[in-house]
């Protein structure tokens, strides 16, 4: 009799803990819920195909970051993190997620430059786009999303080529199917699994 009692108690505790885990998982909320603030911006991807931002990605979870391909240190780290997240999302069988990196240096970052930047990193373009376009359109996206990219002083190499670098925001943004910003991460230092878990909360 006594031992049966203990068994019942153990089963009840076990059952309750499953319930708690279940509801905790479902009730997890993302910290932000604000509109992206831009629409109908015509951009070009690495293959020079027209992409309407963000409308082309409506109905999909979007992971977005901003880069320039002349960046030697931070932007490659951010791109590498985006690539690792893309691989993990695929591994976990999560569908309906798109990855986008928009250049804040459209004058130098032509579609072919973006393609070269992606190719050398073996980017899987299946659901990954690098975007560039008219500086005015890009500027409005940057302004609306509070992304800063300030060109520094121009210096010259011996051969006379001009070089300049940007001081810039280091961010990856998670956007839901309705075009609303749901979370933001340090681009170059993002915790891969934490971002994947947030993507899971948004669902397929």
């Amino acid at each position, binding site marked *: 009799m006594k031992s049966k009692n203990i068994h019942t108690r153990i089963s009840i505790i076990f059952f309750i803990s499953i319930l708690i885990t279940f509801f905790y998982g479902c009730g997890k909320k993302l910290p932000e819920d604000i509109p992206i603030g831009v629409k109908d911006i015509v951009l070009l991807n690495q293959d020079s195909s027209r992409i309407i931002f963000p409308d082309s990605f409506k109905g999909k979870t979007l992971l977005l970051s901003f880069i320039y391909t002349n*960046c030697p240190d931070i932007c490659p780290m951010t791109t590498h993190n985006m690539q690792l997240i893309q691989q993990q999302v695929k591994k976990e069988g999560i569908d309906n997620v798109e990855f986008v990196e928009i250049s804040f240096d459209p004058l130098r970052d032509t579609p072919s430059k973006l393609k*070269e930047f992606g190719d050398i990193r073996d980017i899987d373009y299946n659901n990954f786009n690098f975007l560039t376009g008219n500086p005015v359109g890009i500027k409005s996206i940057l302004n609306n999303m509070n992304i800063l990219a300030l060109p520094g002083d121009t210096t010259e190499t011996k051969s006379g080529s001009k070089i300049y670098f940007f*001081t*810039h925001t280091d961010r990856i943004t998670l956007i839901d199917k309705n075009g609303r910003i749901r979370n933001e991460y340090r681009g*170059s230092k993002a915790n891969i699994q934490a971002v994947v878990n947030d993507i899971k909360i948004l669902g397929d």
Partner: protein
Amino acid sequence: MIFLLSILTILNYNSNSIEINNAWVRPAGKGMNSALYFELKNSSANSDELFKVSSNAAELVQLHKTVNKNGLMEMKEIKSLKINGNQTIKFAPGGYHVMLIKLKKDLKTGNKIGFKFYFKKAGIIKADAVVKSY
């Protein structure tokens, strides 16, 4: 004998006191920029100073540091870097790096690139870096 030993000690000091370990470079296309990372190890008791790095792979090579200023990432050129006795300094993504500006050729994963590191006391130290994806 003591004379011979002291010469050996001096030779040893010059060849082994400063080491460049685990040097690697990011892949990038010709005309673009990349960065070199490594561990700088000083196993002598004396300090030294790295003031220049050179390579045939790029038009311009500079010592840099990435700094985070209120969430904005900024790169600053540094004229030289002091290393104390028995100290190791890591050049790593998001911090100290040697910037390779205007690459003269494609740097593809697996390629090896030669570098010369210039120190005030140890002189010129040569090291190869491997191109690896990150």
